[in-house]
């Protein structure tokens, strides 16, 4: 193999070798023992004179060359695929989008548009209210609970914010918005999943607030988002509205099996 030939040729000296000798890595005798060394513990203890492909006979060199080829191809393909996955839509991704997605999803999915192209410039608060069936057979509607404000307070002064405070509701809302049209109709299976997920989160939070009271049961919930612009910095001369905008979702009924569970 090339490495072996070149390596041995180089040592024959300049007389036979028109080019400077190949700089060879230091003798491996003092290289760190491999982590798997214990597994080869009972092998003959005499130090190996050489390692690497140069120490192999032709048969084994072919094996090494094969491994090198496979790994080289795998590395190039993988890095190329990841590059195309994170790159903006382009000629290649338009033609081979399917192949790229097959390679990347689900385990190598990634998104590094961190605060890019523009950082979010609005505070989006998710709020919820509930309709309670009371013990005396009546119903009452609670006020709006600002769940995002609760999260914000939990994060204030917190060196280690939990994902349950920082990501859970925020990302559930993003997921909902991404899988629903402007009329709040779900798009596909993911739309339906996001609705149930969001409903579960607000139910959990209402439960923690003891919104239903002692004997009541949450029968329906309504979610809305309240979006306000981050106030302009002092030095800025841009004019921005400070009026919040609302996106109000329809009332969702809690399925009977879940209310029964909550009542237990």
């Amino acid at each position, binding site marked *: 193999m090339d490495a072996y030939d070149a390596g041995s040729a180089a040592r024959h000296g300049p007389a036979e*070798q028109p080019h400077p000798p190949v700089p060879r890595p230091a003798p491996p005798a003092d290289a760190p023992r491999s982590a798997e060394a214990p597994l080869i513990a009972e092998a003959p203890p005499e130090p190996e004179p050489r390692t*690497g492909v140069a120490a*192999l006979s032709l048969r084994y060199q072919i*094996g090494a060359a094969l491994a090198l080829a496979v790994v080289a191809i795998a590395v190039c393909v993988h890095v190329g695929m990841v590059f195309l996955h994170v790159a903006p839509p382009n000629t290649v991704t338009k033609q081979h989008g399917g192949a790229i997605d097959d390679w990347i999803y689900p385990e190598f999915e*990634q998104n590094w548009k961190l605060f*890019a192209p523009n950082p979010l410039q609005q505070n989006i608060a998710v709020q919820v209210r509930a309709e309670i069936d009371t013990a005396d057979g009546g119903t009452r509607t609670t006020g709006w609970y600002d769940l995002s404000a609760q999260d914000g307070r939990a994060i204030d002064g917190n060196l280690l914010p939990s994902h349950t405070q920082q990501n859970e509701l925020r990302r559930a809302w993003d997921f909902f918005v991404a899988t629903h049209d402007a009329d709040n109709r779900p798009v596909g299976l993911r739309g339906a999943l996001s609705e149930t997920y969001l409903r579960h989160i607000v139910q959990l939070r209402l439960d923690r607030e003891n919104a239903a009271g002692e004997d009541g049961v949450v029968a329906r919930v309504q979610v809305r988002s309240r979006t306000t612009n981050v106030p302009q910095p002092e030095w800025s001369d841009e004019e921005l509205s400070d009026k919040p905008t609302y996106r109000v979702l329809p009332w969702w009924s809690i399925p009977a099996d879940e209310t029964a569970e909550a009542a237990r």
Partner: protein
Amino acid sequence: MNRFALAISAAIARVTESAHGPYQTAVIRIGFTATWLLFLLREFPHRHEMYGPAGPWDFDLAQQLIGTNGSFTALIWSSSGFWFESVYVFAVLTSVLLLLGWRTRTMSVLFMVGVLSLQNRSIFMGDGGDNVLHLMCVYLVFTRCGRVWSLDERRARRQNAARARGERIAPDRVGPVLWGVSGFALVAATTAGRLDGDLTVPVILWIMWPAMAVWWIVGRRARTAQPRILLDVIGNIVHNGALLVIMAEACLIYATAGWYKIQGTRWQDGTAVYYPLHLDYFSPWPALADLLSSSGTMVMLITYGTVLVQVAFPFTLFNRRVKNVLLTAMITEHAVIAVVLGLPFFSLAMIAADAVFLPTTFLRRLGGWTAHARGRLSRLVRRGEDRTELPGPRTPENPEHAHVGFTA
């Protein structure tokens, strides 16, 4: 023979004869496992809400979504509470053991299983930090990341010393047992149809498991040194490939983050950094955020600096000195982000990823300090002290490693 052929053969020698960056791979192993471990401990009180069968993203929802994308998670195998707790504990244990470098290769596979099981169970719970860990735990499996700063290395060193003294070394019992148990689990999961989703993880598991057996058998039974050297060469090739992927991934993260920012008007007008500081979800210290954003010029400098560093970083790898300057800047920025934006685990994961580019001399010094501090500590505790037990960067360094990390 022409110059081109010589260059090729030199390159082949380089990637086959040693596993590059032993300190860099060890430090990212420690960095990622520590991040995941601290995260799991932090979220221990919230584990049911995040990943449990009765959390908001409940078993049924997870099952429906995974039915569409086939991602790997052991948590979907059973909806029982006991199974959930076991997997969580498993994830904690494997991160501790991989951090310590105990049976590194096996633990790196099990660590991957733990990370993917929890993260894929509730994909809407994570952020960029989880994403980094998700990718890196897969890449880590292919590296020889336990060659320094690990219990494996210490064991190997002791055995070598014992052998040099002519003592007989008891055969390894733990390795085969570990292999047998994990193999039993793998076969059981496969025959039960639990690995019928996406192929990525099953393929990795089914390659690693027989590979470990081949390694073991060849190490003990082979009559000549040749098969053993071949395996060593393959291990080096795979390690170097994975290390390259890890470095490329880190560069892609920065390149993507940087180049997309350039297209944003707020990054262009120099106000972008102001906004995250005033989002309720990313402002644990409103007073600090106000202070940082009180000067428009300051905000603009940080905004431009961030983009500059992110875009420039991959190109600076060709120059060692500039690379180290930018690396320092990025690690500092991530440390600041950890506190100011309240993203400690994201920042830790990013710093761990950055660490793959740290110079070997610095890492060795770091190891020396750690060993020194540990030595002092144990003297303070007044335990019987045996100097030979200090796990330091004692392994003789192959000079080849000295410039790894600058050239990639």
